[in-house]
């Protein structure tokens, strides 16, 4: 009962958050990594998470994925306690090289998610082709991950995640290892994909510009232990544009605010 009282309150007139962290604390190896984190992410929201290295961004994302269970507090998904990972929540890992099956072709890697979802094998090829086209990899179905560039591998991982038809997409510095040009292209593609699918997104990045460019809301974490230090609503018009959005006065204001926050945490 005590726990129920602490639950994320459903505020009348406002929709219930799709993902709700309620006073979440996580200890690993006797160390408190996340402390007393409360956070609601509504359906269809694009939330960006920034913070200094080692402040617990990845850990928070793994809690949202159900890959970790909180030491205390609770994580709910669609109003249900999250006890294990689920297919409706897809996670795009930063190290795409490790998250793909090297013995399966691009088509085979996408197929893994369809197989797990129980799609009959006759229907898979058409769906695989469609997904590969969506992420900009048409004609690469027969390639092995090792034959693809970093950007292509990350697209492939996104295709596999889309094959899960997720309600929530968790992304952990997905473009961190890619060059600036590839990164900007993929940012716009992700925005388009998300707009088309209506998925909720939690996007971890250490690139402040990227966070503001993509997000509806940006939160900054404080380290040791990880907790929320700043929360900014991003009221920039959509669709976003690489040139005009980044020159928008509001963009520059938010950028300044976030920059000052990060600088303060690093001292």
């Amino acid at each position, binding site marked *: 009962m005590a726990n129920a009282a602490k639950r994320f309150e459903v505020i009348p007139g406002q929709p219930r958050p799709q993902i709700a962290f309620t006073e979440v604390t996580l200890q690993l190896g006797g160390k408190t990594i996340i402390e007393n984190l409360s956070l609601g992410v509504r359906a269809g929201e694009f939330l960006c998470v920034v913070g200094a290295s080692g402040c617990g961004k990845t850990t928070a994302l793994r809690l949202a994925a159900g890959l970790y269970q909180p030491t205390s507090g609770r994580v709910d998904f669609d109003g249900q306690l999250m006890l294990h*990972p689920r297919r409706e929540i897809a*996670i795009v890992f930063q190290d795409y090289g490790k*998250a793909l099956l090297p013995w399966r072709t691009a088509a085979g890697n996408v197929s893994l998610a369809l197989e*797990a979802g129980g799609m009959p094998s006759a229907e898979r090829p058409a769906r695989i082709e469609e997904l590969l086209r969506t992420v900009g990899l048409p004609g690469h179905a027969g390639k092995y991950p090792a034959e693809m560039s970093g950007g292509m591998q990350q697209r492939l991982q996104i295709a596999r995640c889309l094959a899960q038809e997720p309600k929530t997409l968790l992304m952990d510095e997905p473009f961190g290892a890619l060059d600036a040009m590839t990164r900007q292209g993929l940012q716009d593609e992700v925005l388009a994909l998300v707009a088309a699918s209506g998925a909720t997104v939690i996007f971890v990045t250490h690139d402040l510009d990227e966070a503001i460019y993509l997000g509806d809301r940006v939160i900054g974490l404080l380290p040791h232990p990880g907790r929320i230090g700043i929360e900014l609503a991003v009221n920039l018009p959509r669709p976003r544009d690489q040139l005009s959005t980044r020159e928008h006065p509001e963009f520059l204001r938010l950028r300044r605010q976030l920059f000052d926050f990060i600088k303060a945490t690093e001292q």
Partner: protein
Amino acid sequence: MNRHATIWLWRAASFAVAASFIALWQLIANLKLVSPVFLPGPDRAWASLVRGFSNGDLWSKLAGTLEHMAYGWLAASIAGIAIGAIIGSSRIMRTYVAPSLEFLRPLPVSAIIPVAIAMLGLTQAMALFVIAFGAIWPIMLATIHGFAAVEPRLYEVARSLQMSRLAVIFKVALPSASPDILAGMRLSLTVALILSVVCEILAGLDGLGHWVLLSARAFRSADLFAGVILLGVTGYVTSVAMSMAEHRLLAWQASQR
């Protein structure tokens, strides 16, 4: 272009070495440096091989040895992969079982043979047991290593896809461990051949081992050498066949380097 030239040079060189080895052998035999009762020339060994194959004797012996080898190796592969997978996929199993394995592994198979004979007699079953017991180690240890080395990230992908336990084993763990497993199976092939010959000699089972033993006892040195050459060829051919199978099955690895 350059690479090709080097490969051909190496082939020519190894062919030349083999040819000069046979020539030397012929020379020693012709000069009778060693009594022909013990050392036939390559000409006589070849004649015996041709004779053995044309009257069918060697075919049946070869078939016998291949059969012992194949059954023992297959039994070792199935058991080795199954046991290795169970041990390798659980850290608890690895910590508790690995020390016992380290104790059993260096145990020479020859020490098991008297035990096997005492329990099973001089039978096919004894041969199967001994061959499988000897051949299981490389496969099992390679499988344990392969399963322990599966990228943890892939298990997380499997979890977030809510894949069944069976699907995780067959779609993630086994393929990931397959390079290790196949390498272990190739090593075991040689062990299986050696133990097939040993068991045939000990238990008088039909096969090349028995043929070699009888030829030696009757001082038919040409037949003896024909058997030994055939065993060498068998070892070489099975190992090359296995390498080719590995190459095909692991085609995806070629692109990784």
